[in-house]
């Protein structure tokens, strides 16, 4: 605990982006923070039991959550739910990303496409995607298509908008330079427009992944038989709080991993922005 406090003081001294922290120290700080959070949670859960504050079923300690997850895993159920959620996210996000990037590239480059697509997007975008979920269910039923379509719908917007921004922000002098070197049509697109817009496209993908995990849970609350959202809702019906928390933790980890994957892609593809 003493070392944690001293770490905080260095954090304060050097600021959030201070260069003073070495990689190892940064990692140590992050691990300490997570451990401290778990310790606090455990202490609270323990206090509830000791002092009989309220029914401990409402706040199970982390060990009970792990236990519940282990039990689900042992029964082989956990993977079914994880797989169901991941499949919906993969298909829904994949479709949303493909549509968002394709239409975004088109709208970014061609004024006619932009003038057709953008007003529609601007009209629909302010509506919280969740408000559209019941409509999706009414239109295509409560099965897989509505869940996947809903993710596609929700992830499309940030990806479309960042892609348009990415294309529109390309320095015109780069396009002039490319044309003067003989690039036009497809070559101009693949060699200049796409790489120049890539950082913004990747930002959109990262937002899209986060949003996909955000909306999948809610669509799995309704009419699903598998999936982590289903697991949470099922836990609520039967007062299985450890199961609810366990599913939430797994969702958090999956979202974290998804974000990490896109970040990895970003680092690989846009290394030129931050050369060593």
């Amino acid at each position, binding site marked *: 605990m003493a070392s944690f406090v001293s770490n905080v003081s260095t954090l304060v001294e050097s600021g959030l982006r201070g260069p003073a922290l070495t990689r190892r120290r940064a990692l140590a700080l992050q691990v300490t923070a997570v451990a401290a959070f778990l310790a606090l949670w455990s202490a609270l859960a323990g206090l509830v039991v000791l002092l009989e504050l309220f029914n401990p079923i409402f706040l199970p300690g982390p060990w009970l959550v792990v236990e519940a997850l282990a039990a689900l895993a042992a029964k082989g159920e956990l993977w079914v739910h994880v797989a169901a959620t991941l499949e919906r996210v993969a298909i829904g996000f994949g479709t949303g990303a493909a549509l968002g990037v394709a239409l975004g590239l088109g709208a970014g480059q061609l004024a006619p496409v932009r003038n057709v697509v953008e007003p529609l997007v601007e009209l629909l975008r302010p509506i919280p995607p969740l408000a559209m979920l019941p409509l999706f269910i009414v239109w295509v039923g409560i099965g897989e298509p509505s869940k996947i379509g809903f993710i596609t719908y929700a992830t499309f917007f940030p990806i479309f908008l960042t892609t348009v921004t990415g294309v529109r922000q390309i320095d015109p002098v780069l396009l002039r*330079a490319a*044309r003067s070197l003989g690039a036009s049509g497809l070559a101009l697109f693949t060699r200049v427009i796409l790489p120049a817009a890539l950082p913004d496209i990747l930002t959109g993908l990262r937002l899209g992944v986060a949003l996909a995990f955000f909306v999948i849970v809610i669509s799995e609350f309704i009419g699903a038989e598998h999936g982590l959202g289903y697991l949470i809702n099922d836990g609520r019906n039967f007062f299985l709080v450890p199961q609810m928390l366990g599913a939430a933790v797994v969702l958090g980890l999956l979202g974290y991993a998804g974000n990490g994957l896109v970040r990895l892609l970003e680092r690989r593809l846009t290394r*030129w922005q931050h*050369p060593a």
Partner: protein
Amino acid sequence: MTTAGSPKIQIRRVAKAFGAAGRAPALAEIDLDVAERELVCILGPSGCGKSTLLNIVAGFLPPTAGSVLVDGHPVTGPGPERGVVFQEYALFPWLTVTGNVEFGPRLQARPAAERKQTVDRYLDLVGLRAHADKVPAQLSGGMKQRVAIARALANNPAVILMDEPFGALDAQTRETLQDELSKIQRVEHKTILFVTHSIREAVYLADRVVVMTSVPGRIRQVFPIKLPEIRDRFAPEFTQYEADITRVVKEEVAKVHE
């Protein structure tokens, strides 16, 4: 189509006006020829339309009237036979130095061995062979502009258009790059149209200096620079040219303020 000895660039009665119904004339009736292997500097008060003229020759802007011929072919848009070096360098930030220099040859689908030869040759010429694998973010302004020059040369254009290429550099780097361009020109003998607002730069580099009037820009006077290929900025003949041209430019600048 072209006959030997005919001018490489022919600017014929080119005029340009901006705004609705041409309310803001920028250029009025420019006639100018640039011969093969000639380096012509266009000089003038700021806003006289000298960059506009270059953009018209590059094909980035259509003229309001008149036409531009390069090797006898009318200019209708940008093209690889007219290489451009921009003040802002305009390097592709996601490509390495090599990637930038071989951008043109790659578009022409030149074989890898030939591309490597081309890249090596021009990086040697601008002294950046050791930096071939860096990306633009790792280079200084002077190095970036050297890459941009190498990139333009590697595409082997018929003419090179340079739009205040050293304008963003500090005075020291500026003179170094002038020295290098002069050296390159003694080897490569390109046809170059070079826009600048520096009289010294123009006298140092040009075979002919074209002084433009204030807006709407016309050609005020053309000074053939009869100095040796290797020039001395402190030679009396050099400073005489500088003084003569300065007098004319000052008259034009004064007109702007009237």
